[in-house]
């Protein structure tokens, strides 16, 4: 060590530290919870009525009964659109025009919610393996991350479960988003409340 370095070390300054609370770093700490500070809330503005993408989407179904609702649906196959029929007019429609399905609130692994229409047995009492396997998958998906894949030979969905260590889904706050709210969003342009509705007019050939 050089003489100068040695001298500098020998003359190391003594530093006084203020210990009063006013300047205590612990007391001066600023809360870093910017989520709360920003006060930004995410709005759900779109709720598609759809089934999970076969072989691609991991999903869960809401375990509460409140988030399942049987409705009458009309499907426009060419447009791939679903319409909810109001119970008020459903009795006025021919049985072949609509089917009954349970709209099941579901969520993808990416956190997107959707209403999965699970078909009941048809109005004439017939059921099929595709519908049965879909309903089965929906029940299983209440507790495990699930994926369905279409099996053309069996004409049914194969059901796969993800490993158990995948975190639970984060469902939207039930206070802000009861089932009625999801229905309202999903049915925004897809609710048939009268026999004059253009969809019915189109199907009955009146326009």
């Amino acid at each position, binding site marked *: 060590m050089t003489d*100068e*370095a040695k001298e500098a070390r020998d003359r190391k300054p*003594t*530093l006084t530290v203020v210990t*009063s609370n006013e*300047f205590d*770093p612990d007391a001066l700490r*600023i809360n870093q919870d910017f989520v709360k500070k920003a006060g930004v809330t995410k709005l759900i503005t779109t709720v598609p009525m759809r089934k999970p993408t076969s072989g691609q989407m991991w999903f869960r179904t809401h375990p509460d009964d409140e988030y399942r609702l049987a409705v009458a649906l009309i499907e426009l196959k060419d447009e791939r659109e679903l319409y909810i029929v109001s119970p008020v007019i459903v009795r006025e429609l021919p049985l072949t025009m609509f089917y009954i399905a349970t709209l099941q609130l579901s969520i993808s692994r990416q956190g997107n919610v959707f209403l999965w229409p699970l078909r009941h047995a048809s109005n004439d009492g017939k059921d099929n393996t595709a519908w049965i396997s879909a309903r089965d998958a929906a029940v299983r998906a209440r507790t495990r991350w699930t994926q369905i894949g279409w099996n053309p030979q069996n004409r049914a969905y194969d059901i796969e479960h993800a490993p158990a260590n995948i975190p639970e889904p984060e469902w939207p706050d039930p206070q802000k988003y009861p089932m009625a709210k999801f229905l309202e969003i999903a049915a925004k342009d897809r609710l048939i409340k009268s026999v004059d509705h253009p969809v019915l007019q189109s199907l009955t050939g009146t326009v």
Partner: protein
Amino acid sequence: MFAPDHDYTLETLPFDEVWAYDFEFIATPGNRPGPVCLVAHELKSGRELRLWQDQFGPWPPFDVGPKSLFVAFYASAEVGCHPVLGWQPPTCILDLFTEFRNSLNGLRLPEGVNYSLIGALIAHGLEHLDVSEKEDMRALILRGGPWTSQERQAILDYCASDVIALRRLLLAMLPNIDLGRALLRGRYMRAAGCMENYGIPIDVDTLTEWRANWLDIQDDLIAGINADYGGVYDENRSFSQQRFRDWLEAQEIPWPLLEDGHLDLEDDTFREMERVYPIIAPLRAVRNMLADFRLGKITVGKDARNRTILSAFRSTTGRNQPSNDRYVFGPTAFYRGLIKPEPGDSVAYIDYEQQEFAIAAALSGDRNMRDAYLSGDPYLAFAKQAGGIPEWGTKRSHGTDREGFKQTALGVQYGMSAYGLAAKLKALGLDGSLANARNLLRMHREQFREFWRWNTGAVNFAMLNGYLVTTLGWVVHVDRHTRHRSLANFLMQANGAEMLRLACCLMVEAGLEVCGPIHDAVLLCAPVARMDEDLALARKLMGDASKVILNGFEVRTEAVTVNYPDRYMDEKRGRAMWDRVTALVAKARERKQAAMGG
């Protein structure tokens, strides 16, 4: 904007004395400052002190205890004069530089404003000395003595004019100063002054030999680089963009382009690419050495210590930004091999382990992220949490998979896109498909949801309120030029800077010889016999500092200790180039000896 809790006036400042003060000094490169004069005004009483260098006594001419506040502009310079004079540095410092910087940090500065004292005066609409007049006076001081009595008077008057300017600036800024946290920043400026004063021990013999043989080894260096990098230097020692482009294509390394289609050859670009492609490191080192002989610019004092201003708070994140040329930790990594403890001494490089990951985990409150950090290997834990590695997997059994998750976790902190991550994975010999990169990023979002929520919340807060602030009050302001990515990264980087600053304060105040800070690390020096004790204390204090910043969460540290006669070395990024240069210098020496012998 971020508003202070108190609205102080000069009269209500909670100190008996408030001193605005300024030293004029001569600082030759690498050496401690040589104080020329001191002017100090006690602002409450109006008392003035003017001391020429022959009037400095063994004790400070004012009370430096906790009842006095010292106001300065870039206070580490003032603090650096204290130990030279054998004076205890002030206890409480209000640095108007740090506060001015904090008030505009992140914003584009108005025309004519910079972060100098004159810039601050202009920004506040206050009178100021003409720049050329100031330069003339600095030149007179740096010329060195002896000075005539008129010159001496002129220098004292000039020093006094800065103190008067300080008073004006203080009065203008005081209503907006967040005093408690400003004093913490002042506390760091005191620690910075002490660290600058200690300096980093350098192997001057090796540095001198390298400098002496520099011209002789240039051709050999170029030949070596050309052999490995497709002859990128032509016969005129010019860097051939076309040959470099060919080499990059052969290596399948994508390189950033300028708007005109040419390769971006800025050193910053090389630095970024070096991180992704370590193969670039020796080439960057040689480019730097050839470009401006940086080896010649490292400032080493007569006592074989590297010293330069640390430029505290100079970066937007509040980290130090010392000169890349003058600081031994600044240039390419192999220069670090020049760090060598003096006989009987030891140096320790102590750094926070995965500091930014720990900060993200602690401040976001993400349980998975905290668990991952606490596991000791956050990347392996992340991989297991995401199901990418079985529970029984280890770094050894699943090293490649772990690396993919590690690069993802690191990349996310810098806002890396799927394209960027894919390129990085590819460079490391991993699955560099876009699909894999997207998958890894998705897993990060899924595993660390709270972190993402918090991070998005922070960016939202900044965009809505126009600022973000760290735990101890370092602010970044938002304007239309602010980049989303830098905001997303700010809290990790800037709280990391807070952590290291507080750690430096605690260590220096505990009497430890902290030679210098380096990003998230420090270099500690001590006699060999005492190093274990000093190192243990330093690591404890670094842990304590992390607990303050992270509300009780402790960030681990790791340390590498080197005893004389060994040297410090960055094995990963610096060893190859160190060995290359050492061999070339030895060859040059042998040639010279042979020539002399012949």
